[in-house]
């Protein structure tokens, strides 16, 4: 039974990320159309226009992957066939498994079981996420190399240098979060954010660590290699960067990896800085509004509300990343490396030092 529950949780977490990436594909098309004041994807329809409204989401949710998976798989003659196959696999696998440790709800008490709503409740969650994100760089570098094409290779080397540069800033910004909460466990961090500041505001992470949030968000966007950090796949300079020589499902896997990364960054930002599954003032037995006002909510509904809250926050931060992507111009490569090494790295080191002093002076919690 325990094994089945675990399996169900793992599958649920995986389905969240899989569906989210597919929906994001559609949101990105419609969203970019909205930002650029054009119509966007509006052709494919589930019931052929029988419905009064357009189920445009079906276009990318179902039709797009099906179409891409039926394209011809072209491997350049000079390429290394095995590595050419392996690269997209390495690009997406570590990202898929990352989402397993992000909690999507508090404990669910049902049928005599207390189920922790988290794919795998590792107590070293943050280190696990860093480890898996550090593996994703191989997909880029191997993909560029295996194609045996100059554009692809240059894209791959650029991409891997960019990813490793921003990994440092990302890791350091999370160190200050760990300093604040004193644990590496995502579920504990999410629970700690259920407290109240001044008895009014929910004690979400961004009150304690606004700078870490900023650094983490920038570094996370750079890791996902999307505009304004899309140097490795800069269309106007490098064709399509490290995946120039890819077609069909392999190419769509690379594209999907970017979206999974967007989802992971959104998930981490939600969990570490915006309370994860916390709904403000909602506790196990219902809402406790500031001022002593109490509304009873049944336990099961509380869990449902928490999972919904997590999904809504997750989606909002994905949307924010898409908005940024379509609003900002691409950085130059020197600006990109400057930002990573000369701005974010010293800034995040300073943030760790400040946080450490604050923790010692005020225990980090009573700063406000």
């Amino acid at each position, binding site marked *: 039974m325990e094994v089945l529950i675990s399996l169900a949780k793992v599958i649920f977490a995986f389905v969240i990320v899989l569906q989210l990436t597919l929906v994001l594909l559609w949101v990105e098309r419609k969203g970019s159309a909205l930002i650029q004041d054009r119509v966007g994807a509006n052709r494919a329809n589930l019931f052929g226009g029988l419905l009064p409204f357009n189920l445009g989401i079906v276009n990318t949710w179902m039709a797009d992957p099906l179409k891409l998976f039926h394209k011809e798989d072209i491997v350049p003659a000079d390429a290394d066939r095995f590595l050419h196959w392996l690269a997209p696999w390495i690009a997406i696998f570590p990202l898929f498994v990352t989402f397993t440790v992000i909690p999507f709800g508090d404990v669910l008490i049902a049928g005599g079981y207390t189920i922790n709503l988290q794919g795998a409740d590792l107590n*070293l969650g943050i280190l696990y996420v860093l480890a898996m994100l550090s593996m994703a760089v*191989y997909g880029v*570098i191997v993909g560029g190399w295996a194609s045996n094409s100059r554009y692809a290779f240059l894209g791959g080397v650029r991409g*891997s240098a960019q990813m*490793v540069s921003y990994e440092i800033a990302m890791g350091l910004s999370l160190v200050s979060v760990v300093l604040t909460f004193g644990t590496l466990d995502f579920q504990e961090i999410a629970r700690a954010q259920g407290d109240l500041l001044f008895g009014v505001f929910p004690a979400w992470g961004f009150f304690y660590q606004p700078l870490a949030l900023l650094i983490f968000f920038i570094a996370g966007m750079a890791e996902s290699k999307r505009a304004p950090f899309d140097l490795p796949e800069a269309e106007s300079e490098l064709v399509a960067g490290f995946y120039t020589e890819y077609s069909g499902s392999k190419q769509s896997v690379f594209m999907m990896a970017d979206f999974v990364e967007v989802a992971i960054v959104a998930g981490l930002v939600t969990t570490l800085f915006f309370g994860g599954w916390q709904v403000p003032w909602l506790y196990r037995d219902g809402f406790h509004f500031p001022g002593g006002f109490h509304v009873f909510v049944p336990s099961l509904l509380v869990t449902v509300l928490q999972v919904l809250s997590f999904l809504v926050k997750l989606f909002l931060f994905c949307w924010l990343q898409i908005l940024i992507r379509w609003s900002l111009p691409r950085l130059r490569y020197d600006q990109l490396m400057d930002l990573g090494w000369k701005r974010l790295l010293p800034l995040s080191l300073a943030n760790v030092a400040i946080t450490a002093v604050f923790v010692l002076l005020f225990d980090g919690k009573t700063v406000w």
Partner: protein
Amino acid sequence: MTLFWILACVTIPAALTVILHRNPVYSALALVFTLFQVAIMFVALDAHLIAFLQIIIYAGAIVVLILFAIMLLSLEPEEPGDGRSSLRAAGWGAAALLGLELVAIAAVFPDTPAAEKPLPEGYGSVAKIAERLFTTHLLPFELTSVLLLVAVVGAVVMARRRTGP
């Protein structure tokens, strides 16, 4: 125990691929795979923190550096069989000797393996390891930074000499 045998059956071929494959990129990827297996061994041995460090530092950083070097040199696959013959013979000889030794050990292997002590409370937890690291082993920890400083300065000086000042 089942886990151990699976690990052993996967790790040894992967390690052999590292040293025997002609293409260094394959060697490096096989090394990543081997490091992953070693990380799983660490998890099995209650060293969870070490397992993740292994992946972050070894698989995520050191092998990336090795791959960069391989790609900077754009190496051709090596022609087999033209290594120094004396060393080759010595290598295979040493391997054979070790194989014999392992067989010998297996022959005298105690039927009852050493009793497993119950592990102390919180064994392998981050807090306990950190406590040892930042109290008992503080000096090596601080010296580590000096080692890294020397390494980065040395590496930068040498790597830059290639392109000139």
